[in-house]
């Protein structure tokens, strides 16, 4: 301020000495500030992407183990244990009764105790004997022989094998390693099984199938309605209060928190229309209401991008307004509509909260068979597993997250591909 006051006093303005020390300092300070600002921006971008990388790294680190399982070798002497059941009885209509009288579960525990001592039974997963049973059902001739089977280890041993177990389990595991009786293999059960109580036995197929059925319902409902509504609003709707109301509703629906849709589903579909609880049908209906505005908005943008010259040319050769849209505009807008639809569906696939509201958290050990069976979906399964106390569920939860992220990644990649491949620049 004093500088300025001084310069005002003089009648002749003093020339600024750009090369003077004060000026140089000032410029250096301004450049330093510039550098700092730039680095802050870079830092923000790097931190954000580093967080994403960290999240994926944690999920991969925790979850990859979920795709593997630890198996323990177990020798069976079936002729001695069963007292000579003939293979023929295990086939045909009487097979179930034969298995029941054989009592595979106790044969299994006796074999385990013979081989690994009195605690041997506990080394194996709770339901390991069912694998013995299905192995016998697949190959009845085995019952007349001595065989060696690799059966899933208990959750405690499994965690120990992955290097994170309790003291006792580590000791058991070390013992098994010394006996050369343990190996890890790819856990096909995780991809084909359903929910359960024993983390060594659970799988995601039940939840995945529930997700697939729900998504089909969502797509079948939301896609036609969304596209038709977009066509109406973009091509035919007169400018009046009704149209404004429709537009406001659609924009509003797109911004409503997803949990509100769950409340709607609970009050309207379950309470008022008395549809079955936990069913994929209700989940699909609820998600369709959520996805429809996304599709409408995407479809409107795609239709808007078709140049008016196309419409005018079609009208010029005598097409009716409906023919113009359905023969010319829509086919050209389809890639854009597909992209928007896939992105909307990806969002619906990752959605959890509204489905919790309508009870899609059913504990079912078999995959749903139809639209009205109790079902769960992949994100809800992740949520349910994350609540489990058993430590074995940590890696299963992360593994399920990996599967979910892979699906979302595939869908988004498909959307990007469609956009790049079919998008026309006018």
């Amino acid at each position, binding site marked *: 301020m004093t500088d300025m006051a001084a310069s005002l006093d003089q009648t002749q303005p003093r020339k600024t000495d750009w090369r003077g020390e004060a000026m140089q300092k000032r410029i250096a300070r301004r*450049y330093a*500030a*510039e550098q*700092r*600002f*730039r680095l*802050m*921006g*870079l*830092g*923000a*971008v790097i931190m*954000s*992407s580093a*967080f*994403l990388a960290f999240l994926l790294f*944690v999920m991969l680190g925790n979850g990859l183990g979920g795709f593997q399982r630890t198996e323990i070798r177990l020798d069976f002497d079936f002729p001695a244990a069963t007292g000579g059941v003939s293979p023929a009885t295990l086939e045909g209509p009487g097979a179930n009764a034969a298995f029941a009288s054989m009592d595979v579960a106790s044969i299994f525990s006796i074999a385990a105790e013979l081989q690994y001592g009195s605690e041997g039974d506990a080394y194996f997963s709770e339901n390991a004997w069912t694998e013995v049973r299905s192995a016998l059902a697949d190959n009845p001739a085995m019952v007349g022989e001595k065989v060696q089977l690799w059966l899933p280890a208990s959750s405690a041993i499994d965690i120990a094998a992955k290097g994170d177990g309790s003291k006792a389990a580590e000791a058991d595991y070390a013992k098994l390693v010394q006996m050369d009786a343990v190996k890890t293999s790819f856990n096909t059960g995780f991809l084909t099984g359903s929910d359960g109580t024993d983390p060594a036995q659970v799988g995601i197929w039940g939840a995945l199938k529930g997700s697939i059925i729900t998504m089909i319902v969502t797509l079948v409902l939301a896609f036609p*309605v*969304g596209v*038709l*509504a977009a066509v*109406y609003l973009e091509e*035919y709707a007169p400018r009046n209060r009704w149209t404004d109301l*429709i537009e406001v*509703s*659609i924009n*509003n*629906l797109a*911004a*409503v*928190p*997803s*949990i*509100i849709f*769950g*409340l*709607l589903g609970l*009050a309207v579909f379950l*309470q008022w229309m008395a549809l079955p609880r936990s069913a994929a049908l209700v989940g699909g209906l609820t998600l369709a*209401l959520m996805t429809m*505005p996304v599709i*409408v908005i995407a479809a409107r943008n795609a239709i808007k991008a078709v140049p008016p010259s196309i419409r005018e040319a079609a009208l010029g050769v005598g097409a*009716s*307004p409906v023919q113009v849209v359905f023969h010319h505009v829509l086919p050209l807008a389809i890639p854009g509509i597909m992209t928007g639809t896939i992105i909307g569906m990806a969002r619906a696939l*990752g959605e*959890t*909260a509204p489905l*919790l509201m309508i*009870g899609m958290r059913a504990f079912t050990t078999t995959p749903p068979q139809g639209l009205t069976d109790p079902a769960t979906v992949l*994100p*809800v399964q*992740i*949520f349910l597993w*994350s609540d489990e106390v058993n430590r074995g569920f940590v890696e299963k*939860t*992360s593994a399920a*997250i990996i599967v*979910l*992220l892979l699906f*979302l990644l595939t869908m988004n990649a498909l959307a990007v591909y469609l956009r790049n491949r079919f998008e026309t620049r006018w």
Partner: protein
Amino acid sequence: MTITAILFIIIGLGLISWVLGRIRASRFLVADRGTMNSLPSYHGWYTALWAIIPALLFITVWSSVAPSLGTFAVLEDPAAAKLPMDGFQRSAILSEARTLARNPDAQAFNPLARELAPVYAAADQRYAWIGALAAVLLCFAGAAYAFLRIKPDFRARTRVERVVMMTLLLASLIAIVATLGIVASLIFESIRFFSYVSPLEFLFGTQWNPRDTIPAEGSSGFGAIPLFWGTVFIGAIIAMIVAIPFGLMSAVYLTQYASANVRRWMKPILEVLAGVPTVVYGYFAALTVAPALREFAVAIGISSASSESALAAGLVMGIMIIPFVSSMADDSIAAVPNAMRDGSLAMGATKSETIKQVLIPAALPGVVGGVLLAVSRAIGETMIVVMAAGLAANLTANPFESVTTVTTQIVQLLTGDTDFNSPMTLAAFALGLTLFIVTLLLNLVALSIVKRYREAYD
């Protein structure tokens, strides 16, 4: 005769009438040398629509009428004379008989129900057949009517297009129906809730301790202030402290400094953050972030630190919100006219001075609008807070303590059996209504701010 079978038959008949109508129209086309008003396929569609639509409408009406017709038939039956006169018991037995008729393995507590079940089954069967027969007849009648109307000068296209336009209009009305459904269900259940608890107590009470029965005196346990505070604390304070600087600086860097190549790669990567499902963020917050924060808090001497802290949920939610803030800021910075930026640079300002003193002030309304949208998104977010924020309704400003939010409590109140007569279930709807109104207002304010600012430069 199941509904599905009837639907298939009707669709099949529709296909056949499409083909027949088309063939008939093509004959005319050949005979008249192309002076027909509409193309043959429009005549086909016209016939098919006449075959399908009346039959479908009939089935919709019939399937809502048939059950009560079945009940009438049962009441006529001599066995029904034994029914008690009391209306409640009467309908209980009837509905039990109906369940039995549909599913013979079902449990029956009343011997009379077992007696009435076959009557019910027979009546249901009879009306199903009558309905199916009528629908198919209607289908034939419609197709025949349309078929006979096919003439060279018949305007089939206009009529088909009228149906198409009706369908388009109906599709777009579904959005209004859905909005009305949301508003109606929220308001209806909330009114029932407010008959138990006064709205003032709900909005301004500080005790949140929901129970099935409301004590006659003292606090009702439905004071939602701790929930509102928790929601604001996590969604509007902690999450925004993370999201605003990171989102804004990322947008500034990517639009003003980064080369085109960097921008091409970094923008989609940031957008992936918005595409990760919230349940994944929630799991990450609960599994990794919350324990780490707790250890940190204990290490710096805050012994009250909870393993479900507001900070963990808020931090992770803030990171989820970064792309929203960033893309809104990106848009509003891009909307600032280049002349303003160039003018500032020409005066000798450095880039950062231009950004700080020209671009951001000019883009501020857009940025504020974007932040409001982000807040509305954050307070409606459910899974992260359900998994990481906890259930204790604390009124605390200590970020290391556990707080609970509106969405967490909605999930909590509605898990398990939902009894629509319990104030606990209804409270979830009252919370939902509050959340709906607040997010709606935030969105409206944000959009009007953005709109007004856009007009200033156009």
